[in-house]
């Protein structure tokens, strides 16, 4: 019976909308689940690669979740990791080739990190935790939601790193235009280095937890 009822779940029911909105804040893959940190450090020195990375992950995770969800009943549990990896690898290669063809410069900046989407913990995590046990449509929403949550943090971190580290936003030299360098300002070289991305992610976690207090661990 309950399966029948679920069948009639409207496409954008509250539950389905939650699948997208929860990862944006209180179930965020980076700040709450602390997954996918490596790429958050590597590709966020500038806005452009961060946004491209976010879009790639949205594509891979959304499509991957659908594929796995469709296959979920035919995958033998013992070999599921191999099947999952094959699906991710296929999608990542598609993205990589697409970027090489249509956005060559960004593709060069991202270099190995597009290929390394395969090892992004968020993707395997969602396959294992969600799409192996849910229908394609909710799986798609879950995938897009988590990838958006990941992308959101990436873009926030990249915004501050590019603004403070290179004095520009999306390659446009904002700080030079408003004449900040004339009064003795200098770009912060530490912002370009990966440790600063970690500290920025830390600040985001701090801000988030002081706003959403139930996220604070008690021990």
């Amino acid at each position, binding site marked *: 019976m309950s399966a029948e009822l679920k069948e009639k779940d409207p496409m954008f029911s509250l539950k389905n909308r939650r699948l997208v909105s929860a990862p944006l804040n209180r179930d965020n893959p980076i700040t709450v689940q602390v997954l996918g940190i490596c790429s958050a450090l590597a590709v966020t020195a500038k806005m452009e690669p961060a946004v491209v990375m976010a879009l790639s992950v949205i594509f891979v995770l959304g499509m991957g979740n659908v594929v796995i969800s469709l296959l979920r009943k035919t995958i033998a549990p013992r070999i599921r990791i191999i099947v999952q990896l094959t699906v991710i690898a296929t999608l990542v290669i598609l993205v990589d080739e697409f970027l090489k063809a249509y956005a060559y410069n960004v593709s060069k900046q991202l270099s190995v990190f597009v290929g390394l989407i395969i090892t992004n913990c968020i993707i395997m995590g969602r396959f294992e935790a969600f799409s192996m046990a849910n229908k394609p449509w909710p799986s798609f929403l879950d995938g897009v939601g988590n990838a958006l949550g990941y992308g959101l943090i990436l873009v926030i971190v990249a915004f501050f790193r590019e603004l403070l580290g290179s004095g520009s936003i999306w390659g446009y030299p904002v700080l030079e235009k408003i004449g900040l360098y004339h009064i003795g300002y*200098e770009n*912060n*070289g*530490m*912002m370009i*280095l990966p440790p600063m991305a970690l*500290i920025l992610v*830390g600040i985001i976690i*701090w801000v988030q937890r002081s706003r959403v207090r139930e996220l604070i661990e008690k021990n």
Partner: protein
Amino acid sequence: MKGLRRALDRIKPNFAKGGRFEKLHSTFDAFEAFLFVPDKVTFTGSHIRDAVDLKRTMSFVVIAMMPPLLFGMWNVGSQHFLANGMETGLWQNFWFGFLQMLPIVIVSYVTGLAIEFGFAQARGHEVNEGFLVTGMLIPLIMPPDVPLWMVALATAFAVVFGKEVFGGTGMNILNPALTARAFLFFAYPGEMSGDKVWIVDKPDAFSGATPLGDAMIAEVSKIPSPMDMFLGFIPGSIGETSKLAILIGAMILLFTGVASWRIMLSVVVGGLVMGLIFNLVALNDYMLIPAWEHLIMGGFAFGAVYMATDPVTAAQTLKGQYIYGFLIGFLAILARVFNPAYPEGMMLAILFMNVFAPLIDHYVIQANIIKRRKRWERARVKADLNNGFKEEAHV
């Protein structure tokens, strides 16, 4: 004095629980404790109360920092006038350095204390005296020409991310003053290294390189005489130049028992050992510098006396302190000679070992536990054997 006490007593109820400014009570407490000795006593349990509390400890460190600070002021002026080819007297040099130094000290204290008070207020903690030392150390390890906004930014970064995120004074992993310097070193390398920043208003024709800078580019012959480096008539960060002044400070710290002699000694030994190893290997001119000369170059002495001995971030166990100090000296000289990107290795060596101090302590304690357990087991076996013999004798 009595008037002040009375004024404080009059407004005190406002800051007590239920008073009008209850929220500001930690700020009030801080000022009261700063002006008068706090009158708090414990009522329950037995506590050993030592007269050397945090405030006293910190005051001693600040006193011990006075010799390098005063000499640093004079040297800033002296180097400036020397570079510009002017003959000046003692007071003129000192006055110039004092004016150069004062804004840096004020900026460092105001930024740091504002953040400390803010955090104490938000958390309902008491403001403690930890920043009195950090706020003075930060100016001492800056180049004299550093822009003030950078001092403010670095201080804010160090206090928030070096200290407050870990829970405030006593909980920090990294030395906050060195965190401030490391932040500037990586964020604004142009203002923190090279040969332009060590002399105020340096004319272009004058070489302002520090001895370490000269050594790094294999111009060992340009290194000033050991006597100059020991007395401090060289360009460098404000507080680090005079080893004599630092030695006086070290005496004060050791005499008052604030700093650990084990750490200071082992840092020096570590540096000497690495220096001697380099002397034996002797691949280039830099490696041929006598090992003892490394001790009076750059910030080695300053770091060994004021930074490595920070009781919060150093190793706590006595054996651990030897290991901790030795590795600081060892790594500092290693980084100095080998890595062209970091002419001075002391800052990174100390920060690195700060991170490892808890690990060293852990293993020292574990080793002690294992040793005592073995002793106890041996004693038990012996006792069992004795009992066995007795029983046999009875049969």
